[in-house]
C-alpha cells in the first residue's frame, strides 16, 4: 500500500511533492500580497480621512465575516470578468483570463490582507508616539521617519500576529483546490479517487500540512528572537 506514496512510476510521491510546492507557492505569494494589502489597509484605517477609514472598515468587516470559500468562488467565477472590464477601461478590448494560480493568490491574499490589516494597525499604534516626535525634532522627513523609526519597530511588534495570519493563509490555500489548481489538496483528491485509498492519501496530506505548519512556526519563532535581539528582557 505504501508504494502508492513512492516516487516511482506507480507512486504519487512526486506529484504530492509538486502539489506541496504549489501550496507553498500560493501561500507565500498570497501572504506577501496580503501584507501589501494589509499595509495599505492599516494606513487607511489610521489616516484622518473619513472616507478611507470607512472603506478599510468595510473591507475588513466583510472579508472577516463571510466564509473564505465564498470569496474564492467570487474570484473564480467573477475575477476574469472584472479583469476584462478593467483592461477595457485601459483601452484593451480582448478578453482577459486569469489563471487558477492568480485567482488563488488574489482570493487568499485578500482574506489574508484583512487579518494583516488589523495586525499591522495594532503594531503601528504600539510604536510610542514620543519616538515619532523625537524623530521630527531631529529634523527627519516623513519618509525617513517611516523608514528608520516606524517600519522597523512595526515589523517587530507585528511578527507574532503575522505568524498567526500565515498559519491561516497556509490552511486557506487548501480551499483553492475547488478551482482545480494543482496544489496539495487537489492532487490528494485526484490520487484518492484514482487509487481508492482515500484514507491513506488524506492522512498523507494532513501530515504534509502539519510539517508545513510546524516548520513555519519554528521559522517565525526564530524571526521573533532575531527581531527582539536588541530589546532588553525583563
Amino acid at each position: 500500500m505504501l508504494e502508492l506514496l513512492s516516487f516511482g512510476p506507480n507512486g504519487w510521491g512526486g506529484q504530492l511533492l509538486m502539489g506541496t510546492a504549489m501550496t507553498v507557492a500560493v501561500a507565500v505569494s498570497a501572504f506577501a500580497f496580503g501584507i501589501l494589502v494589509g499595509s495599505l489597509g492599516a494606513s487607511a484605517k489610521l489616516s484622518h480621512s473619513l472616507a478611507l477609514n470607512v472603506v478599510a472598515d468595510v473591507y475588513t468587516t466583510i472579508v472577516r465575516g463571510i466564509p473564505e470559500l465564498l470569496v474564492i468562488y467570487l474570484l473564480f467565477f467573477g475575477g476574469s470578468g472584472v479583469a476584462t472590464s478593467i483592461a477595457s477601461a485601459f483601452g484593451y478590448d480582448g478578453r482577459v483570463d486569469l489563471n487558477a494560480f492568480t485567482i488563488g493568490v488574489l482570493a487568499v491574499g485578500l482574506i489574508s490582507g484583512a487579518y494583516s490589516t488589523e495586525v499591522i494597525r495594532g503594531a503601528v499604534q504600539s510604536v510610542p508616539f514620543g519616538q515619532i516626535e523625537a524623530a521630527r525634532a531631529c529634523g527627519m522627513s516623513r519618509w525617513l521617519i517611516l523608514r528608520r523609526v516606524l517600519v522597523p519597530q512595526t515589523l517587530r511588534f507585528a511578527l507574532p500576529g503575522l505568524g498567526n495570519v500565515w498559519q491561516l493563509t497556509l490552511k486557506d490555500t487548501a480551499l483553492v483546490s475547488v478551482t482545480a489548481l494543482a496544489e496539495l489538496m487537489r492532487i490528494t483528491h485526484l490520487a484518492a479517487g484514482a487509487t481508492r485509498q482515500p484514507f491513506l492519501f488524506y492522512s498523507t496530506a494532513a501530515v504534509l500540512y502539519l510539517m508545513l505548519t510546524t516548520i513555519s512556526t519554528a521559522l517565525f519563532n526564530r524571526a521573533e528572537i532575531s527581531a527582539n535581539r536588541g530589546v532588553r528582557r525583563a
Partner: protein
Amino acid sequence: MNWQLMWDSLPRMLGGLTLTLQLIVGSLALGALVAFGVALLRLSGNRVVETLAAAYVFVFRGTPLLVQIFLVYYGLGQFEFIRDSILWPFLREPYWCAILALTLNTGAYTSEVLRGAILSVPQGQVEAARACGMSRALAFRRIVLPVAIRQMLPAYGNEVILMVKATSLASTITLMEVTGIARRMIAQTFAVFELFIVAGAIYLVLNFIATRLIKFAEWRLTPYLRARA
C-alpha cells in the same frame, strides 16, 4: 446589478439556512463537550493522557479543515470494520460527517481557549475555596469553571465566528447549505456578484447575531461590573 434576481434568489438561499444553523449549533454544542473533556485531560497531570490530548489539538489545529472533512467523509468509509460497525448509518451520511469533522475541529481550538482560561483563574481563589472545606470537584464546579467561562468568552466569540464561516465547507461534501446553494445558483445564472452579495449578507447577519449573543452572555455573567441602579 440585477436587483430582481437578488430578491428572487433570497428565498432559495434562506432555504439553506436551516442546514447552516443545524451545522453551527450541532458542532458548537458537541465541540464544547469535546473541548471540556480535552481541556480536563490536558490538565490532568497524567503524562500519557496529556500528551495524547496535546497531540489531538496539534493535529486538528495544524491541518486545514477541508482535509479533516475529506478524511472523515471519504477516508473512514474505506475500512471494512467501519462499514460493518453500528456507526456506519451515521458515517455514511455527509451530514453527520460534516458535524463530526466540525466538532473535532472546534473542539481542538476551544479546548485551548478553555485551558488558558482555567489556568488564568487565580490560585488564591482555589486555595480560599479549599480552605472553606470545598472538595476539589466542588471547588472546580463552583469557583474555577464559572470564572474560567467568563474569562474565555471573548476568545470563544472569535471561535464561534470561525465556525459560522467553517460550515460553508460542508458544501464540498454535497450538503446544500447557504454556500452550496449560492455556488449552484452562480453556476446556473452566472450572476456572480448579485448572488455573492446575497449569500455574504446572510453570513454577515449570522455573525452579527453571534457576536451580539456572546456580548449578551458577557453582560449576563458580569453583574458586578454593572453600575447599580
